[in-house]
């Protein structure tokens, strides 16, 4: 316990929602200041950068649909990863799982004999399945042989990216796309409907919102959710209680990989309508999804506002690219700094600060 001026600071391992939000906002502010330093080093005055960002996002009504469009894959990936991280399964491979989903959707759209009405459902099912499979491999490698999933999931991102490169340059290269690394355009029955004149593919948005709610119910109301929480908080206790790690780890791997797969389906079926180079399908949504999950503080519903916030970061990246000729890498700087400040704010998060009356004593008493 420590006393600073009129405030009493006590440890609090389970912070309230309000306090989490305050600390998160402080971390975001810190990241903004640090990013300002990077802009300055790049030769753009930080205030000019922030004004450009604000004008291009908050103050431009056309920007909102773009923010939501960016938030769709982030929401799916992030709310899936919340489950994985709750069970201490460090799935860093969402990027590859997104690409797997995109590949599966393309396969169904271009080469399956499904009738047009079933095309879109088929694409989502296939995308979920291949994304889940892409995550199940590292889960099994860990459960069976102890290979750490941080490395295996991450290395599989590179495998998936080169796999997509190979498909679009080789066997799936479009017949009408001379010289370009694209597949053929999907038939129109495989295009996701958009909301009005925006680029918001609403079926995927609905899936994302539904997924976050599903994850929340799963965690708080079901046996599997209970097992996931115990496994994550205390693996030893889980073992004594007879909760098999196999089941929880495999479940969260399948759920998080599948959700990322759905995000990949949304990107190709909702926006590009074809498979193209990996960097254009996912602009780092898999890595940013880690940030969404971390910002959600373990609650799948928390992924909704945090995906929206990250959508804002991505849209800002677009704005700065156009208005200030900055490379899109600026989103990586932002995302990384945000994540760094959020991780660094852990001790602050686990404190309770209360105002105590009668602050007449000495300002600093000994810390314990």
């Amino acid at each position, binding site marked *: 316990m420590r006393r600073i001026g009129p405030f009493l600071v006590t440890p609090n391992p389970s912070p309230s929602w309000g306090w989490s939000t305050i600390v998160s906002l402080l971390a975001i502010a810190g990241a903004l200041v640090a990013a300002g330093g990077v802009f300055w080093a790049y030769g753009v005055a930080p205030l000019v950068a922030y004004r450009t960002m604000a004008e291009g996002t908050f103050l431009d009504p056309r920007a909102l649909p773009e923010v939501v469009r960016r938030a769709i894959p982030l929401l799916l990936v992030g709310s899936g990863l919340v489950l994985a991280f709750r069970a201490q399964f460090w799935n860093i491979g969402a990027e590859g799982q997104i690409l797997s989903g995109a590949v599966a959707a393309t396969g169904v759209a271009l080469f399956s004999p499904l009738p047009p009405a079933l095309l879109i459902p088929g694409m989502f099912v296939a995308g979920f399945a291949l994304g889940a499979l892409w995550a199940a491999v590292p889960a099994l490698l860990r459960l069976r042989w102890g290979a750490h999933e941080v490395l295996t999931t991450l290395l599989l991102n590179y*495998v998936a990216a080169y796999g997509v490169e190979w498909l679009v340059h080789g066997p799936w290269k479009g017949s009408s796309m001379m010289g370009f690394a694209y597949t053929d355009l999907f038939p129109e029955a495989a295009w996701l409907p958009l909301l009005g004149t925006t680029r918001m593919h609403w079926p995927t948005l609905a899936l994302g919102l539904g997924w976050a709610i599903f994850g929340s119910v799963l965690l708080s109301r079901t046996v599997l959710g209970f097992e996931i929480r115990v496994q994550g908080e205390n693996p030893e206790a889980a073992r004594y209680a007879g909760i098999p790690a196999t089941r929880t780890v495999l479940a969260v791997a399948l759920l998080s990989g599948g959700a990322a797969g759905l995000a990949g389906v949304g990107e190709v079926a909702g926006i590009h309508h074809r498979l193209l180079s990996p960097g254009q399908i996912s602009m780092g949504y898999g890595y940013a999804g880690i940030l969404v999950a971390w910002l959600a503080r373990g609650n799948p519903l928390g992924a909704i506002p945090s995906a929206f916030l990250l959508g804002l970061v991505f849209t800002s990246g677009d704005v700065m690219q156009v208005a200030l000729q900055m490379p899109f890498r600026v989103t*990586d700087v932002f995302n990384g700094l945000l994540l760094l400040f959020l991780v*660094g704010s852990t001790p602050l998060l686990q404190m309770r600060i209360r105002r105590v009356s009668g602050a007449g004593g000495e300002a600093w008493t000994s810390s314990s």
Partner: protein
Amino acid sequence: MDVLLVTFLRALAFGTPLLWAALGEIVAERSGVVNLGVEGMMLLGAFFAFATAQLTGFPALGLGVAALVGGAAALVHAVVCVRLRGNQYVSGLALGMVGVGIAGLLGRGWEGTPLRTPLPELSWLTLSGLVLSGVVWVFLYHSRWGIILRSVGESPAAADAQGVQVFLVRYLAVGFGGLTAGIAGGFLSVAYRPSWTEGMTAGMGWIAIAITVFSGWDPLRAVAGSLLFGALFHLSFRLQGFVAPELLKMAPYLGTILVLTVATARRGAWWQEVPEALGAPYVRGER
């Protein structure tokens, strides 16, 4: 015989950055801190080494700057997860993102330019990497300081009780890891492929971390690991006439997963060496 020699030399050249990065990660992890930001630190090193060498004409100076930048980046990670007790995995990932982003941002104007004064591919840097692994080995297993470092990674509470400054040791170990990762990246941009391209490390930082695990946190076995993966990269390049290049590029990553799995499956021998306190933040007065 000639083919073997060529393969060996190429493996040596490609293995050099892997070895430098892995040696630093071994030291950091021996102190109980995982740093997943190797890829970002390497890219920062690659960019700053290139920019310095291009501006001054001295590649060695570039490597020095790369080392400092890598070390500084690693210290950020150290502050976040040693002092502030943040999650080591997430902090390292964040550092990686920042490094990739900053290098990409600052390096935009230099994209694709060849370096005027490159170092030879096989040079004192390769040799000193081999020497360094011997030095780190002697340090870890046959010096007082090495015992202190390892005890911090095995049982920080016990080391603390013995009067060891746990935080200081971890700062130094993580900082050293950043230093070598910076040099590893610098080697890429001033010697191996004397130029700057965004994302030129292409996952080598992750492979270096895999070598750390594969080697069982042993610097001498890391030499073998680096040569193995260097050879794998070389072969994936050599076979391009026969298989689609994109599929060949997958090979080193798939190979890494395979080797990692085999290495960890052999629980009896190497895996036992995993530092006991790896990944766990140390809080004074607990346990």
